[in-house]
């Protein structure tokens, strides 16, 4: 397949000036919505994503109750204005699949057995979309879970790596995702060294597969330190927090 656009310059820099293993700018803020039990906002490249958590709460309809653990509900949803062409507000097949893999990426980190017969809702709203929106969404969602005081084994954090101009690079942006030849979103529990999400698109030699995968994990750990800072800022900053929120 022809790749007309050169995505890596003579100087080894990518179109936005990054080195092959460099992350885009990321900022994280925890506790940004008033009504939600927990929330977090992430700016990652051009991604702007809000995640919020409600629960544990009663399960409706009742036949979905899990007797021994919490039911985790997730929705990954894109605002109509979040992409270049206006998106129909109805959920696409892509959004339905991503909602499922996000749920399966978060559940392993939640002590669902501590909340039998309840529902925990995780809403991920993509206000502006860029490459790597699902891993950015997971990164924000696990902060929102922590903000809601849900018992967790570990945070979940992700990064997407891939291949452009036959080179493994970290953290694809929108152009690199579309024009490049491979995208590999990975989410991990960094302290437990477990992978909770893995999806692969593209063509990878066995060597490149391993390189991209290990790079994704390494960069995920880098994002994890930003997650911790954001949580620390939320709970241990100088500003006094309202009691019910820091409890």
């Amino acid at each position, binding site marked *: 397949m022809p790749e007309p656009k050169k995505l890596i310059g003579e100087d080894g820099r990518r179109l936005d000036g990054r080195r092959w293993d460099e992350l885009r700018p990321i900022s994280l803020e925890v506790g940004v*919505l*008033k*009504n*939600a039990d927990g*929330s977090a906002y992430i700016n990652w490249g*051009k991604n*702007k994503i*809000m*995640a*919020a958590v*409600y629960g544990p*709460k009663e399960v409706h309809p009742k036949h979905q109750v899990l007797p021994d653990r919490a039911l985790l509900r997730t*929705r990954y*949803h894109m*605002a*109509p*204005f*979040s*992409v*270049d*062409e*206006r998106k129909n*507000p*109805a959920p696409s097949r892509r959004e339905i699949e991503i909602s499922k893999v996000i749920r399966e990426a978060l559940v392993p980190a939640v002590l669902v057995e501590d909340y039998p017969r309840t529902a925990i*809702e995780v*809403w991920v*709203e993509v*206000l*502006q*979309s860029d490459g790597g929106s699902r891993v950015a969404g997971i990164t924000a969602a696990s902060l929102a879970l922590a903000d809601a005081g849900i018992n967790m084994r570990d945070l979940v954090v992700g990064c997407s790596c891939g291949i452009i101009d036959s080179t493994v690079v970290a953290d694809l942006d929108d152009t690199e995702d579309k024009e490049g030849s491979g995208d590999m979103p990975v989410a991990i529990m960094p302290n437990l060294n477990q992978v909770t999400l893995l999806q692969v698109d593209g063509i990878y030699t066995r060597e490149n597969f391993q390189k991209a995968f290990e790079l994704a994990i390494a960069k995920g750990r880098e994002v994890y330190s930003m997650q911790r800072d954001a949580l620390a800022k939320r709970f241990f900053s100088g500003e006094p927090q309202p009691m019910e929120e820091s409890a």
Partner: protein
Amino acid sequence: MSMKKNYVVETIRKAQMLELLNRGKRVDERALDQHREITVQTGVIQKANGSAIVTLGDSQVLAGVKIATGAPFPDTPDKGLLVVNAEILPLASPYAEPGPPSEEAIELARVVDRGIRESEMVDLHKLCIVEGKTVYTVFVDVNIMNVDGNLFDATSYAVVCALRTAKMKKYAIENDKVVMKDEETPVPVEKTPVSVTLARFGDKLVVDPNGEEEGAMDMRITITTDDDGNVCASQKGEASTITPAQVLEAADTSIRIGREIRAQLVEATKS
């Protein structure tokens, strides 16, 4: 979206509210005709042609404008299209659910749409590129991010601010073809309609009810006025009533308060 859950607590709280109102006071210390603080941030979504996050107290709304081209309606061949949609995101409230727009969200979008449309805020004739063939289509999508009462006004302000700051590609007709140019031009905004919503408690009207007040109010009336103090849209809401005299009182209040808010929105969206 009102949060009626515990009838006993609600009844007691409502009695308190009425007692306060009889002394000219509200639960959050505001005067009866005082709206909550409004903040406006524009240009927040770079992929949109225009966008604004507006907070009205703790209600928070994000509006994004997307502009494309398309065919006009057959009966208005010389006018562009303007469509307002709203979704109350499930993250905005414990009572919001994912799924197709609720009755409330549809009413909200349509009332805001009428305020924009009837005031002739955007000159739809100027959105015509080739009569009968190609016009601008302007979609304004609203995401409700946090619900704390009076979504009508918060949404209206967000849509107005997003449109006032939106830019669209220029088009030229070259060799009978419509060609997109690299230049941009603002959306042709002619007016700044302002929606003001009042809640009735017994015989008192209060401006801009917050979430707690909405839970206890008897009814709601939204009145949108334009730069000249004309009424251009209104909607009574909730399964209760209002006297004719109160309607006129509400109109006067809306014209007066609308003037203040208009000045603030215009200021916040100056280029």
